[in-house]
């Protein structure tokens, strides 16, 4: 972390071509859900969310780049798995987005669950874990089905539009955006439903190198802080008034201010005590970041794993105390 402070810039490994999560805009700047976490970490450590050097990485180079020190933190829609956590000598800090494989079918097909899909044909990308998960799921229930595999997305979508397959399976985030963009000529978004069942777990979040627990903790608690801020109702527009006049001791601890003239609690993160004020005022809380980048893609939060735990989701921050 001292390296980051000395350099005055956070090197953040990101995706440059995943809609909603990380893309390059026409003026050359980066934007997206993952990008905002880079900004948040920079705001916490350096006090300025613009002090980020973005390093666009391919899926195959991302872990090497982190391991070799070319980047400080990897936020590139990376799924948290046991082998990655252990074998790569890298640590997953927290889950910022719960993705999972889903199944999209035509609304008029009458399919409500995977169990209904006996004898169905399912379109899937070739040679992916998606294909394996699909097979696992249907084999588990002992339902016969026919997979129809494709190399790339475009012919797959064409086959689905021609109703050559009954179901289309990939990550739910991908399905939602494909559904939102479904051409009106083929019935538009309303002709399709994404089944509620999730076939696989894909928790995505930032990674740091092993044995750098100081930096790891900062990344982790910045993410938790943004979740806690949403839970406490603090957002980028009211954070300064909340900091001046915190409503309760918990809010005061999160924002690094004293409550009722009391002492300021120092969590000893090695960064300014009011780091969450900077993060929230410059980037926003979890909900704001989500609404900004993922809601336009049609990824609704209500009822999904990415709702706050108080709303029945999995977005849950350990207590700030």
């Amino acid at each position, binding site marked *: 972390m001292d390296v980051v402070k000395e350099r005055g810039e956070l090197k953040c490994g990101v995706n440059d071509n995943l809609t909603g999560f990380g893309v*390059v805009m026409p003026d050359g700047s980066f934007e997206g859900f993952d990008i905002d976490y880079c900004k948040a970490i920079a705001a916490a450590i350096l006090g300025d969310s613009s002090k980020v050097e973005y390093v666009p990485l*391919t899926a195959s180079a991302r872990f090497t780049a982190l391991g070799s020190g070319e980047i400080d933190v990897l936020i590139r829609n990376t799924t948290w798995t046991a082998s990655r956590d252990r074998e790569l000598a890298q640590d997953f800090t927290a889950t910022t987005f719960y993705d999972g494989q889903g199944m999209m079918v035509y609304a008029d097909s009458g399919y409500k669950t995977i169990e209904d899909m006996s004898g169905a044909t399912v379109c899937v990308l070739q040679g992916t874990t998606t294909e394996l998960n699909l097979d696992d799921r249907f084999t588990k229930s002992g339902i016969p089905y026919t997979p129809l595999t494709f190399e790339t997305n475009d012919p797959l979508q064409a086959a689905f539009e021609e109703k050559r397959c009954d179901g289309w399976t990939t990550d739910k985030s991908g399905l939602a955006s494909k559904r939102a*963009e479904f051409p009106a000529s083929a019935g538009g978004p309303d002709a399709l439903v994404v089944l509620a069942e999730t076939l696989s777990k894909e928790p995505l979040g930032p990674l740091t190198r092993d044995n750098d627990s100081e930096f790891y903790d900062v990344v982790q608690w910045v993410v938790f802080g943004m979740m806690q801020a949403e839970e406490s109702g603090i957002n980028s527009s009211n954070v300064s008034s909340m900091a001046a006049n915190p409503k309760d001791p918990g809010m005061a601890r999160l924002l690094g201010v004293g409550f009722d003239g009391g002492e300021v609690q120092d969590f000893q993160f090695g960064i300014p005590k009011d780091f969450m004020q900077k993060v929230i005022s410059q980037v926003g809380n979890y909900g704001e970041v989500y609404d900004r980048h993922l809601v336009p893609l049609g990824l609704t939060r209500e009822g999904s794993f990415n709702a706050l735990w108080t709303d029945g989701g999995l977005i849950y921050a350990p207590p700030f105390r």
Partner: protein
Amino acid sequence: MRLINEITRDGFFWIKENLFQSYLNSLMTLLIVVFIGYLFLDFLGFLINADWTVVEVNRRLLLLGRLPLGNEIRGWLILWFSMILISSSIGIWGSPNIKDFLIIFIISLVIFFIFGTLNSIYHILITYLISFSPYFFSKYFLRKKYFELSKRVLIFSWILIIPIFIIILLIGNGPKPNLWGGFLLNIILASVAIVAGFPLGLILGLGRASSFPVIKIASTFYIEVIRGAPLVAWLLLAWFVLPTFLPNLFGLNEVSIVVRAMIVLSIFASAYIAEVIRGGLQSIPKGQLEAADALGLSTIDSTFNIILPQAIRVVIPALVSTFIAMFKDTSLVFILALTDLLQVGRLIPEQEPEFFGRQLEALLVVAFLFWVVSISLSNLSSRLEKAMGIGVR
């Protein structure tokens, strides 16, 4: 009327003689017509449905990549400097005809139609002014009065072109090199690889053909090792592996990825250029060297004055083809976290949901830019060949 009749008659005759001579021939002709027609209709369908917004809003990104806003003038300066050099070179050496001018003009119009905006109209006008005036100046003034001098100045400027590009990009608190991108990055990387790789390749080629065992073995080893692994492997090696076991001399490990890419591309190009040069050296009969020896010329004299000029002349087509290949290989630097033209073409359809499915439009523009440079290089090569009388000897 009679003339038209004759032409149609001749036309029919030609078609019958060449396309429908036998049953098999007729069948082939019909099949090919159907195939071409199908492709044409397919392409027409694409053009009708095409939506160029994705290219329109990303013109800047395609040309300059992630170069921060406000640095566009650096791109224009590089374009203008190159145009002055190109156009004075044509004035001094070239002998273009009206057709050449027309083609260049049409291509430039297409480029400005795709990439120009109302804001850049003055820059475009300056570009035309800058591109045409040095040609007339050098053709009608310099060529007549100061031919030798201006030739030398031009060659010198061509050698200095890369330092000048880099100065233009860095001067006055310029952006970090890893923000250079788009078409500009491909051009810079390719120029460095070619300009640095050529002398290195020349030495290596001579080394491999040399009779000194140490030099011969060292050159052969270098060439075979570099050619033995794919460019992607060398790029990744320079990015990840070198810093971990090389001593941190001269801050080598902290240098920008762009510089590392330049070094790798130059080394890689030199190995291929060396082999091309060696092919040329082998084509020169041994008798010439022996004759030079008999005349009392030193090895260096005979190599540089007798063998090399002939050898290079023979391999110009192969050399230019290596240059074109190197130019296109620069698009591999996207794996080093650089945003080159091809990578921009791949990422822009993902910016917003409304651009989904517009990959073809983006990639078509990318392909067009690569094509313009490649075709210019190959055109230059065929002109050089003609000027040097290759193939008519």
